[in-house]
């Protein structure tokens, strides 16, 4: 990657959201900083947002993707509610990614439910950016 190349996520507006009551936001902030370094315009919701709120912000801000950060074990329910909300609003085309403490057994279930990608804390940031850039190309 040369220094003068266009950043991989240039011009993309991405929502990083913390649904539910989980207060661990180190991961969400690291992702937000990495997305920004990759050229994206990042909107970070802060803690404790309802799925309805996240869907509304995604629509109002016309984002290219939504990233949900969940470390409380409630990823199935919360991701489903956000996906359903987007679908109901006719915005099923906005891809949703999930990051956090996701047990290996839950990964496939999330992908089957319509989540576009799942990242855990051992995913290198460069790989996450690459996958995102590919999905949003």
């Amino acid at each position, binding site marked *: 990657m040369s220094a003068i190349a266009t950043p991989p996520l240039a011009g993309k507006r991405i929502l990083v959201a913390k649904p539910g009551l989980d207060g661990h936001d180190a991961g969400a902030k690291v992702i937000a900083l990495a997305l920004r370094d990759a050229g994206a315009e990042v909107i970070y919701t802060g803690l404790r947002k309802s799925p309805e709120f996240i869907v509304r912000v995604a629509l109002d801000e016309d984002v290219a993707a939504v990233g949900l950060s969940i470390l409380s074990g*409630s990823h199935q329910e919360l991701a489903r509610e956000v996906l359903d909300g987007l679908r109901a609003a006719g915005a099923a085309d906005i891809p949703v990614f999930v990051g956090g403490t996701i*047990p*290996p057994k839950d990964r496939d279930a999330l992908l089957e439910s319509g989540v576009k990608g799942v990242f855990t804390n051992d995913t290198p940031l460069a790989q996450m950016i690459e996958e995102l850039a590919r999905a949003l190309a």
Partner: protein
Amino acid sequence: MSAQPKPEAAAARVATPSGIEVPVVATRDMAREPDPGLPGVYPFTRGIFADGYRGRPWTLRQYSGFGSAEESNQRYRFLLEQGQTGLSVALDLPTQCGYDPDHPMARPEVGKVGVSLFSLSEMETLFAGIDLGAISTSFTINGTAAIIYAMYLAAADKQGVPRGKLTGTIQNDILKEYVARGTWIFPVRPSMRLIADSILYANEVTPRFNAISIAGAHVRDAGCTAVEEMAYTLANGLAYVDELIRRGGDVAKFARRLSFFFYVHMDLFEEACKFRAGRRLWARLLRERYGVTDEKALHFRFGVVCGGSSLVAAQPYNNIVRVAIENLAAVLGGAQSIFTCAYDEAFQIPTEFSAEIALRTQQIVRHESGVAATVDPLGGSYYVEWLTERMESGMREVMRDIDAYGGVVKAIEDGWLQRRIAVRAKEKKDATDRGERVIVGQNRYRREAQADSYGEVFRLDPGIAARVLEKHAQAKRRRDAPRAAKALDALEAAAATDQENLMPLLVECCHAYATVGEMVERLKHCWGEFQEPVRL
């Protein structure tokens, strides 16, 4: 893409994770104070007690709790039968954030990361068959700490245990919640009032109970270094001391009941020296700033967690080794209570199998390793005394930065501290991705596709939320409704003015089976909610 640097790159690593450059060999002339003196003597570099663990072994305190009170009660009885000596209660997020289980924000989280304790009825079940006068109980609770403490007093009243006999700890450290852990509810200043209320009340009513455990663990897990972990925690500690003095507390008295809580990560010497340096620095700060001379008030007592974000999901059995090393560091640092994480906590709530190994790890360190036989066996080592000094001066430097910004409360309200930690977390992640920070099995010696290596899977009963909701409705139906309403009205009236300690009113609310959500609603009505600064 996994980073695989050449082996010689690792040999070039000459700094601790806090960035302190490590000498090839340490020598006598490197430390300014090469003789650390004796344990039990100011400034307590070698420990707060002259006889170390011989007189007072550390408490084996496994953090545990999930689902409903019935399930957790069973797990506690199991752990006590296995030789655990203290309980550590994990609460679910609705209880921690002040929502009843029927609140829309609560539903997906009921019983997930801890037990649901929406009212006294649940706490009675949680401790059924466990004598509260004979056990010490620690609650990881912050935003609703005063309420849970009040509930514990009410539960003891119901068991007929005199309050003065109660021992244990509530975390009750709201400042670090704004910075890292996120279970804040109210704005900073009324939260500080509630904390002062609970500490001052506890000093009188439950003199053997720690009404606060000032915690560095969570900022550490959020990404900051060992030096910063200790520095931020001591800065928060001083903010509480200032608030308690403002409220008329006597520092020589309340400082005896302040306790601390940290993570231990993998660098054995840096971690052991972190505790030696922090213990000494706290004693010095109390003496320098407030003129405290009472020995007991200068004692820096702390609990630790081994594991957390240093645990790795890849090849999880390796975590047993990591936790054992961290356990050693905690003992060499002189911890008063220790919790060892289970190897599978990197990705799930521990199973009974993994929880038992975690407990056995501590028992092996205690009974087989010999490290606890003499006090501070590292004392006088050229390297250890030098590193302890370097860490202490690093901590003072970080604390000066905070003071220069305008103090910790302002740094938190503005989001300044939060941003510093986020940037650190990003640096740490980048160093890991580059392979500079080696994590065996993850970014070094990684084996792909070890699909069957995760061991037993913990399964939370999916019917728990429904059962908790049913019990919640039932508890509200069965209670003396006028008594609950009256207690809540009195609480709200007292919260609206700054005249009265709220603790007796909260205890009465608990006795009346008012719920956590109801009490928090009333307080929010008076105080509002914290507005999180989200600028990155």
